[in-house]
């Protein structure tokens, strides 16, 4: 879709309307020739990107799917074809998921994704509404809110590593209130929620921009009509604004879900999956399996399963949140 030059074709259609009907066949031929050359130009402009996309995305994805049918330790000996054995092994582990790192990581990421997506969507919407209503210092606040999104995730992880330290700032503040804070990142119960909080904080800013753009595009006449009809601020928000934001909410939730499912950096950098695998994510497990255990085939099978799960969930979300979109 994105490759079709929509603008010019509309323009040429309008030009056709102005002309007399008799010239239609000739116009069509001329128009399609023009269209062809425009399409060609578009593809030419896209070539560098398409090349990179094909090489580093499609080729690599297909290669990965292929790898999942082999037992291979890259660089150390030839690959042996094992069919679906890698997948069968993974699904056999479902018999006792507590003993399987992969299914433990799947359960972790499911909890993580649900909390993070809900948290970041609500926070992003609130921040956007806040910015929408603020009159003075709007751009200053927008910059402040956006800082986490442009900070390297390793840097934010490092900051939170200190905040979550048992003698860190968070526990100091808690101790002022008389609460003995936990050792956040080494506590089986708190480690994952601690990473969730960090993730919500650092990703909400990006999605805030999406909401802000959508809010500015909302038709003001509908809101004004609602006001005339006597709707209060809450009613116009929940009955007018939110339904109109549906496409954006879907976009934010879908992107958030995909991003959350692929969480790797904080888990690797801050906890390395510990304590007791409570922060082990599928991406980290895939990395460990491939690069620490040399099981590239098994790791590829895990990635394929992860991809299918994300794919299915995204489709379901589209059905639920944005039913109008599927025509």
């Amino acid at each position, binding site marked *: 879709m994105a490759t079709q030059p929509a603008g010019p074709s509309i323009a040429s259609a309008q030009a056709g309307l102005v002309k007399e009907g008799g010239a239609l066949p000739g116009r069509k031929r001329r128009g399609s020739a023009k269209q062809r050359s425009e399409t060609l130009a578009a593809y030419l402009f896209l070539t560098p990107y398409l090349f990179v996309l094909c090489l580093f995305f499609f080729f690599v994805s297909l290669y990965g799917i292929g790898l999942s049918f082999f037992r291979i*330790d*890259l*660089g*150390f*000996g030839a690959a042996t074809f094992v069919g679906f054995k890698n997948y069968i*092994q993974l699904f056999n582990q479902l018999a006792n998921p*507590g*003993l399987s790192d992969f299914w433990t990581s799947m359960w972790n990421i499911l909890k993580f994704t649900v909390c993070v997506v809900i948290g970041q969507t609500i926070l992003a919407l609130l921040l956007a509404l806040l910015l929408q209503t603020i009159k003075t210092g709007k751009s200053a606040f927008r910059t402040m809110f956006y800082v986490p999104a442009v900070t*390297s*995730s*390793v840097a934010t992880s*490092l900051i939170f*590593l200190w905040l979550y*330290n*048992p*003698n*860190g700032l968070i526990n100091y503040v808690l*101790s002022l209130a008389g609460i003995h804070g936990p*050792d956040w*990142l*080494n506590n*089986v119960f708190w480690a994952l929620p601690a990473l969730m909080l960090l993730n919500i904080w650092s990703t909400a800013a990006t999605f805030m921009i999406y909401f802000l753009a959508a809010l500015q595009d909302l038709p003001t006449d509908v809101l004004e009509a609602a006001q005339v009809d006597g709707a209060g601020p809450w009613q116009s928000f929940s009955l007018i604004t939110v339904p109109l934001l549906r496409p954006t909410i879907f976009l934010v939730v879908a992107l958030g879900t995909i991003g959350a499912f692929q969480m*790797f*950096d904080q888990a*690797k*950098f801050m906890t390395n999956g*510990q*304590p*007791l*695998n409570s922060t082990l994510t599928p991406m980290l497990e895939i*990395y*460990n399996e491939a*690069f*620490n*255990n*040399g*099981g590239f085939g098994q790791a590829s099978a895990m990635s394929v399963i992860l991809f299918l799960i994300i794919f299915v969930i995204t489709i379901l979300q589209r059905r639920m949140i944005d039913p109008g979109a599927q025509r």
Partner: protein
Amino acid sequence: MKRKITSFIPVVLVLGMLLLAACGTDGGTGNTDMHGNNGVNQQGIASGNSYINCPGSTNTTAASAESGTVTLTVSGWTSTPAEDALVQKNLQNFEASHPTIKVKWSPISGDYTTKMRANVASNSVPDVFYLQPSMSSAYISAGKLLNLSPYMAQDNVKASDYYAALSNPFVCNAGQVFGLPKDWNSLGVFYNTQMFKDAGLAAPTANWTWSDLQKDAKALTKNAGKSDATYGLILSADLSRFGPFLLANGGSILNKDGSQVIFNKQAGVDALNYYDSFFKNNTATLPTTVGATWNGDAFGKQKGAMTIEGGWLIPSLQSTYPEVKYDIAPLPRTASGKQANLTFTNAWAASSSTQHPEAAWELIKYMTGSTVQESQLNAGFALPTLKSLANAPYFATHPGFKTLFDAASYSYADYYGAQDSTIHTVLSNAIDAVILNKQNAQSALDDAAAKINNQLQSS
């Protein structure tokens, strides 16, 4: 992103890196007989490591010296600035004494094993490089390493010149040697002499026992659970610290041929219960609980009176916590007087595809020889792997080093074959589960055994 993370790790875990550099992540064959080498007299051939298959084909003869000047690419991981400087100085000394060989030192910062794996996959392995025990099984069996045995035979370097627990991780089951240990360390009980004095305790003796350790830890613990607590002992949930207790108690990680794990037998369960008793009695703490990154960090911050660490803690304390007064005791014995320890070692190895095998061997011979090893000892970085350096003058003035070095006679390599990294992760998690009261010792070890056996069978 991954690259950023890995290059960041040294920044956060400056001290942790030191530990990594000194011991790698693991060491050698836990269950191999220490004295296995003594019966073998053939030059350059060790008794063999049953956990590592020999490669399908390998060089059986030594290449002769090349004419003209050759350049070797040499890689290792980066360590502390002081240790890096010593490596470079020794490499320069090698160049000076071998005028036809130039050395291009290109150290790898960050995740060494992962980057080397990428090098292997893309066929750009350096001529000579550091080899960790966790890498050796894959590299040796796939024929990625130069067989050093013919060169050792030619130059009269015997495998038995080195301590068996140190050379074993780099030897395949037929006894060919693919790497020579460059240095090593063992574990000891580091104890804070001031805290012992304050508590009115006598210093640990060479023959102290498991129950002595428990009693001392109890006497040294103050305000457990409070924010100003000092604990008797700082322990980590780590197989590389728990291992000596398992082995001293008569347990073992793997069975003889390495096909199954057997650590969940009674000896292992009892050892884990002992290890955990310090936590159940509130006389020990995990380093992270007191806001430290690792055992040595917590010991330096004086959050505890004792900890179990290796010789890498000595230079680290010197540079970061010079005010701490400490001494080193050997690991305690069981009630029946048994002792065990772990060795942490790394080797110099050469690529099988090197264009200059003879020059590569010259470098390995020099870097694992007595001159370089004594320079490392004198700098206080690591222990020498050569038996001939057992009476180096440095030991007379540094009794702590001598204590660590003497463990060579009752040590096992912290290395468990092809599934080494899985075994370390899974068992360390089991230890953690017991310490955190999530499982009892028996069920945690049973679960871990099931998981690892699964992996052993499927590979």
